[in-house]
């Protein structure tokens, strides 16, 4: 951790030295450690200390044909390396043709300070992590099973400064645990995330995975086909992430690739579905500004089933009349465009027990594995079930089944909605940068297209 003062000093020194028309400095520091376990013992145990500086310079084209932009980065903080990196960014900018679509780096806007830092997480020792992982290993060993998983603790800083007066600084911590507990014929999964490592209940996580593993022993084969499914939040998170990849970015919408293209303002899924991004919500992991230093706005992506909008950075906003950045820029350069990193799927009123009890015949899914878009415009995704899949008959879990492959449009699934869970779960989000919160779902006519041997 460098601290706000030292970071501002570094940023100011670069901004003072730059001869560009506009200059932006993004500084990130990482102090992270990860304790990984497999076969109920710690097999990988690592730590990392890093600090990186990325410099973006903008040179106005004398003919007014746009701007020339260069980016260079380094993780060496000595003065010579920093100024060498600034020089590299300037050289890159001078050599390239002007970008007619670039308007400007963003100017300063008020940023809300949000607390997202835990001293306990930042100061977590290897011994404490080992005991957390060990608690799960001991549970598994006692049951004659084996545990695998990872416990991460990290302290991170993000700062953005630019020559238009932006200076934004945020520090945060992450404590993340996930585990798979395995037997000869079955496995179970559980995961949790917190800002404060003391909020993670390792034994509870271990028990959740263990119980799933024990219940899914000796799975039976099941014919693929269309089934009603109950999806735990672990599986529902994949809906959010795949919809993000295929449609929630302004660039995808502008290029016509988004499933929202041509449908803004129209109903696209069941009216009970609302999905939004909110970087300031205390129910998530607050991240008050983006990688351009623009404050995060809440963006309603789908509201009561209606496609409402997508997220913008300053570049994609500059391409549309009257748009401004919503505070969702990723680190430059970035041809993919802005992304929502703090997603929420609105909860309903059903408990998991009620969902099961109301199911005549269906499949209970703990989570998905290795999902990929097959047809992005319809959000058709294929993937496998994993770590606890069960057949439901007459309102009860009947028996565990072997894992199945699905090939299913997530949009169609959200139109085949039976109920939405009352309780939500906070899980690490895309790229480990932020977090998503979502409930369980019950959906009918979910299409399984294959099966595997376990």
């Amino acid at each position, binding site marked *: 951790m460098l601290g706000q003062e030292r970071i501002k000093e570094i940023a100011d020194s670069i901004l003072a030295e730059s001869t560009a028309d506009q200059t932006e400095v993004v500084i990130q520091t990482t102090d992270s450690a990860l304790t990984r376990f497999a076969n109920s013992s710690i097999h990988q145990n*690592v730590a990392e200390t890093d600090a990186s500086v990325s410099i973006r310079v903008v040179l106005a084209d004398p003919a007014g044909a746009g701007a020339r932009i260069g980016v260079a980065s380094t993780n060496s903080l000595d003065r010579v390396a920093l100024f060498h990196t600034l020089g590299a960014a300037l050289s890159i900018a001078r050599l390239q043709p002007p970008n007619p679509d670039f308007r400007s780096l963003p100017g300063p806007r008020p940023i809300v300070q949000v607390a997202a830092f835990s001293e306990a997480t930042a100061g977590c020792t290897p011994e404490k*992590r080992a005991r957390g992982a060990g608690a799960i290993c001991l549970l598994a060993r006692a049951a004659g099973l084996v545990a*695998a998983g990872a416990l991460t603790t990290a302290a991170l800083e993000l700062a953005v400064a630019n020559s238009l007066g932006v200076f934004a600084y945020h520090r945060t911590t992450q404590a993340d645990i996930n585990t798979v507990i395995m037997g000869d014929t079955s496995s179970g999964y559980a995961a949790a995330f917190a800002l404060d490592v003391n909020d993670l209940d390792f034994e509870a996580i271990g028990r959740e995975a263990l119980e799933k593993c024990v219940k899914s022993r000796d799975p039976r084969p099941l014919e693929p086909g269309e089934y009603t499914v109950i999806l735990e939040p672990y599986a529902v998170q994949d809906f959010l992430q795949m919809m993000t990849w295929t449609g929630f970015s302004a660039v995808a919408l502008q290029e016509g690739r988004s499933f929202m293209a041509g449908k803004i303002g129209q109903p696209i899924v069941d009216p009970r579905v609302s999905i939004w991004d909110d970087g300031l919500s205390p129910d998530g992991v607050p991240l008050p500004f983006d990688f351009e230093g623009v404050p995060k706005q809440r963006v309603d992506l789908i509201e009561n089933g209606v496609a409402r909008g997508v997220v913008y950075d300053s570049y994609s906003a500059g391409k549309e009349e009257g748009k401004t950045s919503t505070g969702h820029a990723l680190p430059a350069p970035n041809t993919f465009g802005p992304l929502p990193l703090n997603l929420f799927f609105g909860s309903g009123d059903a408990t998991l027990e009620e969902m099961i009890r109301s199911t005549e015949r269906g499949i209970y899914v703990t989570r998905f594995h290795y999902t990929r878009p097959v047809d992005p415009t319809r959000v058709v995704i294929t993937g496998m079930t994993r770590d606890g899949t069960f057949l439901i008959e007459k309102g009860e879990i009947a028996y565990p089944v072997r894992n199945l492959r699905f090939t299913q449009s997530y949009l169609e699934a959200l139109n085949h909605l039976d109920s939405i869970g009352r309780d939500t779960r906070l899980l690490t989000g895309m790229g480990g940068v932020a977090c998503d919160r979502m409930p369980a779902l019950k959906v009918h006519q979910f299409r399984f297209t294959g099966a595997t041997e376990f």
Partner: protein
Amino acid sequence: MRTLTDRALNLAQVQGASYADIRIVRRLTQHIAVKNGVVEGLSDDGSQGFGVRVVVDGAWGFASSSLLSAQEVDRVTAQAVQIAHASALFKTREVHLGPPVAHSGTYRTPVQIDPWSVSLDDKIALLLQADQGLRATSGVRVASSTLAFWREDKTFANSEGTYLEQTIIESGGGIEAVAVDVERGQVQKRSYPNSFGRDQRTEGWEAILAMDLPGNAPRVGEEAVALLTADTCPSGVTTLILGPTQLALQIHESCGHPIELDRVFGAEASYAGTSFLTPEKVRTFRYGSDIVNLTADATIPGGLGTFGWDDEGVPAQRVPIVRNGIFCGYLTSRETAQQLRDIVGTESPETSGGAMRADGWNRIPIIRMTNVSLEPGEWGFDDLIADTDDGIYMELNRSWSIDDKRLNFQFGTEIAYEIKNGKMGRMLKNATYTGMTPVFWGSCDAICDAGHWRVWGTPNCGKGQPGQTAHTGHGAAPARFRNVQVGVLK
């Protein structure tokens, strides 16, 4: 560097390490991206640092830092030892590395033209020319052209006497055209020479020139637009011929990952998964038909998985994986080679197969693919098509998914063609196929010859926690598979 490496290794041993190694890594990357005639991304990135790995009390510890100073080496080495002590609190077996590894030397990727010697002007001009070609066909909505260059200078030393210096240079490039029909809700894409942005090789600028991106751009744009109105791939069980890049990915997913011995032993169980290729299957399990021969070879010139030594200091080597259809070997590390011998006996090699690779200074080495390849067969491509009465040819990956033991897979390709009576026919879109790994490879009845074989690069292989991205290579020539389920998309 030697002062710093000696300092870390001495300190680690003084503090109780029975084994220690240190890697000092400096990585430079350059990415250039042109989209619809505009340079949207151009960056030079540098990252440097070191990582110290130790065994203390029979358990592993690793710590790393970007600050290269004697004081920081002392702090990080002590931190690695402290972490190893914590690992030892919950261990079920002692780390055993087998015979000592003591090598010294230098290795540098042979390049004809250093990519950093080529001007940015020339690089941008090449991409803009390709971009124009892609957009020559009306209907191309998004044209993307990319170049990527990579240089990694790495010093490795261990407490057994190894001291190695390596420089790995890679060059990658690619083009992509996206055609959109908003009214009918369709998006189609064509890429060249490989999907997901680029092909990449351990070569210099000559690799980019050989791709001839501008020369291929008009065809790529035309095909993307043509796909919008092409027929959809039919559903059924048929003969499938895979083009070389799709076959390279098939090898990567259904052979490369399940032969990683750390996966087999459960090290990745909570994340990427395990493997169906369990140790009792060595030398007995029929993985494919008699003509299927697979190797892992880190010495192939230009292969993206080619190097001098792996990140445990073990020399690059060629390892047989499948011989005449029978599974015979794994990708191994020093530690897993010993574990395997404990299970299958002394017929198994005592030394590592040299597959431990780390994604930079801040990551531990884990078992990664080198160049895992399907050896060429004897068929000419035209003869193979002529010999096929009814089937589908699929090429260039669009989507990929496989279960966590690497058995059930489903792939989609950018383009496909019907084969009827020995001739390539109509273009097909949204092509998919699915199967089970040993059944699929067991149905392989023809592989094209060495004239159609080359190594393709996969620069985006994810594995490990914290995440690591590996650069792997896969040699492949077109091959034919019988009785495959195609057309899964409804």
